[in-house]
């Protein structure tokens, strides 16, 4: 059982990771991180001791080599911790056409790509809802990816988890539950001081409602089926409602000072990743 699962995961991992890396790479090219001295672990440079420096920061080993006194500077590390949640509910396992990926697929790619970018940028990442500390580095990334893929949570509602202050939360989902469900949760996170980003991933058919004729619509999460005689007549109503729903979501995220963005699976992942990453790094600085 475990073995089967792990094989399935292993089978899925490389392409996901590769696609995520490719997407991350594209984004990274325009991003040059904070290459400047600051608080951090990694060595950045030696410089002459200045009067305002704390004497504890003198690097004695280096200073002993010559007459001057040197201070060892580390690279500035504003190690942000980012908790990423990826909706894995049945409604995400959907695609309307063969040439678009399933929503969950795209959401996974986006989550992992985002994690790669963040780790590259020196941040720590962790999947939300697993009770794990945020980790950085290559190993932290691997742990993140494995945990994300093995995640057994199939709810469409993000779990509430006590997070450290100033942590960032990224929620990737189709956000098709009623807006009220999310309002409470986001408020909770916001009060604990977390910033956040919501990315709504939708299938093109969910955007445009391209149906016509006599159709029985069936939900993915045991919703009551709905029979439409002339589906095309409902197209505008549906689109209005979708816009309304989005407006509500946008409104409730902005009250918590969160971001809300949408992404269609028919466009490339980079189009969603770039703005998301930009907003995140901007907000972090």
């Amino acid at each position, binding site marked *: 059982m475990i073995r089967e699962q792990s094989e399935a995961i292993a089978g899925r991992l490389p392409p996901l990771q590769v696609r995520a890396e490719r997407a991350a790479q594209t984004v990274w090219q325009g991003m040059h991180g904070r290459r400047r001295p600051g608080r951090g672990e990694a060595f950045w440079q030696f410089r002459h001791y200045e009067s305002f420096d704390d004497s504890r920061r003198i690097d004695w080993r280096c200073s002993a080599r010559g007459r001057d006194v040197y201070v060892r500077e580390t690279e500035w590390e504003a190690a942000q911790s980012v908790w990423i949640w990826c909706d894995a509910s049945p*409604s*995400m396992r*959907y695609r309307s*056409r*063969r040439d678009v990926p399933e*929503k969950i697929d795209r959401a996974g790619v986006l989550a992992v790509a985002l994690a790669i970018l963040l780790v590259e940028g020196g941040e720590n990442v962790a999947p939300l809802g697993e009770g794990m500390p945020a980790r950085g580095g290559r190993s932290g990334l691997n742990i993140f990816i494995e945990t994300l893929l093995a995640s057994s949570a199939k709810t469409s509602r993000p779990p509430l988890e006590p997070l450290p202050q100033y942590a960032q939360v990224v929620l990737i989902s*189709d956000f*098709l*539950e*009623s807006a009220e469900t999310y309002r409470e949760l986001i408020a909770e996170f916001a009060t604990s001081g977390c910033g956040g980003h919501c990315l709504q991933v*939708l*299938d093109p*058919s*969910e955007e445009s409602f*391209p*149906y*016509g*004729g*006599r*159709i*029985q*619509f*069936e*939900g*993915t*999460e045991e*919703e*009551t*089926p*709905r*029979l*439409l*005689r*002339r*589906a095309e*007549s*409902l197209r505008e*109503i*549906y689109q209005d*409602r*979708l816009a309304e*729903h989005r407006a509500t979501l946008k409104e409730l995220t902005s009250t918590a000072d969160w971001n809300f963005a949408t992404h269609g699976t028919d466009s490339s992942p980079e189009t969603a990743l770039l703005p998301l990453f930009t907003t995140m790094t901007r907000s972090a600085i």
Partner: protein
Amino acid sequence: MLSIGSLAFLNAWLLSALLVVPALWLFLRVTPPAPRRVLFPAIRLLYRAKSAEEKPDTAPWWLLVMRLLLTVLVILALAHPVFNANDGTPGKGPVVIVIDDGWTTGRDWSRRTAVMQGLVNRAKRENRRLFLIRTTWTPQDPRPFDKPIGPSRAEGLINAMQPKPWPVRLVPLLEVMQVSGLPVSADVVWVSNGVDDPGELAMITYLRRLGSLTIVMEPKPDLRVLMSPKRIGRVIQVDVIRLAAGPEMSFAVRATTADGRVLARVEGQFSDGERRASIKVSLPIDLRNDLTRIEIEGESTAAAVKLLDDRFKHQPVGLVSETGFQGKQPLLDELYFIDRALAPFSEVTRGPLDALLQDDMAALILADVGIVPQTHRIKLLKWMEKGGVLVRFGGPSLAAAGLGTNHLGSEGLVPVRLRGGDRTLGGALSWARPLNIHSYNSDGPFAHMPSYGKVKVRRQVLAEPTIDLASKTWARLADGTPIVTAEQRGKGWLVLFHTTATPEWSDLALSGLFVDMLRRVVALSSGTFGAAREGTLLPFETLDGFGVLGEPPARARALSPGKVDPGVGPTRPPGYYGTELERLSINLEIDPGSLIEPLAAPSGVMVRSFANNVETDFQPVLFAAALFLFLTDMLATMLLRGQLTPTSSPTDTLIGGLVIGIVTLSLVVGTGTARAQLLEKEGDEFRLKASLETRLAYVITGNGAIDKASKSGLSSLSEVLTRRTAIEPADPVGLNLETDELAFFALIYWPITPDHPALSEKAARRVNAYMHNGGTVLFDTRDQFERGIPGGTSGLRRLRALSRDLDIPALAPVPPGHVLTKAFYLLKDFPGRFTGGLVWIHDLEEDHASEVTPVIIGRHDWVGAWARGQNGSFLYPVVPDGEAQREMAFRFGINLVMYALTGNYKADQVHVPEILERLGQ
């Protein structure tokens, strides 16, 4: 079974299912097509939204109508409707089918079979037994009246049945039937010939007593019958009689030879309201003896064919050589020229007059006989009355005969009064000069005689000028005196040449004119009169009911003279009796007086025609229509459920459309499509084979040996080409000009045989297009050995006939230095199996570098030189030079293929000296 008019339902009870249709209407109306099911995660957004149209859930009316129609069609198809099933056998008892299979039925036998088969099919369905009674039945045949037979056996009998080339015999048949065990209360169908045969009415009366009688016949058959041809002078008169006098109608009569060549085709016309039409066939004398058959075109009955035998063609000529009534006179000398002139065309017999008269000669020739004795004269006159032609020649004896009375009148057996003595033109003591034969009477047999140059007449017997002299004169001298006179006696003729049959008095006997005149005169006779033959004559070839010659049937008896002639019938089918060389023809003679009246059926008898009597089964059509509707319904449902909207991928739509299209097509076109596809596939195979590799090609002539030689010759040439040159052709291809595409081949070898079948218009067009588009055809008449025959060799003649429709350019012999002489080898001439003839190509007037010739015509039988047998040895000897010449033949082949494939580029070599010269400067 339920019948509505001529439409019947075999499973009528199934029609009750139609009652369900209205219920189905209601049911279908409230049951719309099942919706399409779509998985949609954002379904929550659809709740509480009203669809704009709140129409009730009903299917659209046209879909309903289509489905109801579909149901109705299926029910109707299951009920098995059959059109024309009601064919005169409404009862339950046995079915009696009386079948006219006499000579009149050969013209539409297939329709008759179809009707009979329909009857049998129906009897099979109804499990009834049948009596099949042929009206040409004779007591020697098995009796069909005693026991009925099962339908499957009847089917077999009908398939094996053939029309007979003799008349039906109703009277003896009726006698037997009346005392036979035919059941009363039967359904009787008479598939009749539509002719009022003797005993017809009695038969109808009898059959009506058996049960319901239906007569199936063509109401007014346009049956035509050929009367025995008659020879009238040089033409053959043929009378054609039709069954019913009707409007004006044209027909054609063909005169053919034993091997089927048509010698003449003459069109005739029945005038409005006339039953008899008469036409005249005139044939050149030398062709007339080839004539063996006269027939009405398009009429396939035994009575539309007349076979001719030796009696018709032979015109024996008797030369009276031992007269016995004027003492011994050396006549042999005189008869010598006549004998020589007539022998090639007629059977010439010499003998005393009495013997010749007994032998029924067509013509008798008396050369310079003076006075014919009374007894002989009477005999000769009688013989002439019957159609004999007596030809007399002048001479000293005839001149002397009139000397006594100074003239010789009709009692002297001459056509005109003759003066005594003779007239000498020219000579030592005369001013007169010998005269030419100058003119011919345009009414006589010598009209349009070709000119034979100057024929001098030096002496003649002179006719007394009388009133009718001019009309009796067939030929005149330059001064107007008659040289040939004739008088009709009864059916025969008395002809006098006013000069001798020897060169003594004139040059006539030495000239071609003499031969021509004699032949024309002899042709006036109406042939021999019933030559007596001895011994029995076995049937050799007989006519069948369609008027086609074939093996005689087993029952045909030998013809033995002296016995009572049974007349044309089962034991004496019309046809040839005897051997191939000496045969007697027996024809089906229809007495024009008692002939054939169209049958007028008495009232109360049901009469049907063939046209609407063929049973038509509608079941397959209905099922096909239902299937089509079903598929349309599927398509419509898919449309309604939105499965064919742009959301579904275009390939799905395409596949759906294709499926419907293909099914519909296959329904409509049926097996035709399959055959066409098969053909197309075969065509593809041929095209691939022809185009993927270079191949030599030859025309299939249909003559096995020549086709084999062509194939093996070209294979052998291909081998040599592969060995010696860069051309490596694959196996050669045989081409059927009627069907195969020629465009793939650079060179087509076309052997011409004397019996090469004629080209259809399509084939000719194809060959023309091939030649225009740059192909090369090598015509090989293969007949160099026949050279020297006037009018061209047989192959050449055939080629001329064949190429009438081909666009062959002006031709010239291959000029020296032509590319053909140096495409690979340097050649002076182009030998094949034979050599010495010219090879002809398109005459381009010295400009041979600009174009490849579309035709090459030769007669050397090249493939014959190339062809190898299975063991690799050459098939045919090469003359006169043997193997050396064969090598040259191969070299020609290589040059030829090089020329055809590379065109004229070698012609550039022409300029090499100039180029070299220029370079040198």
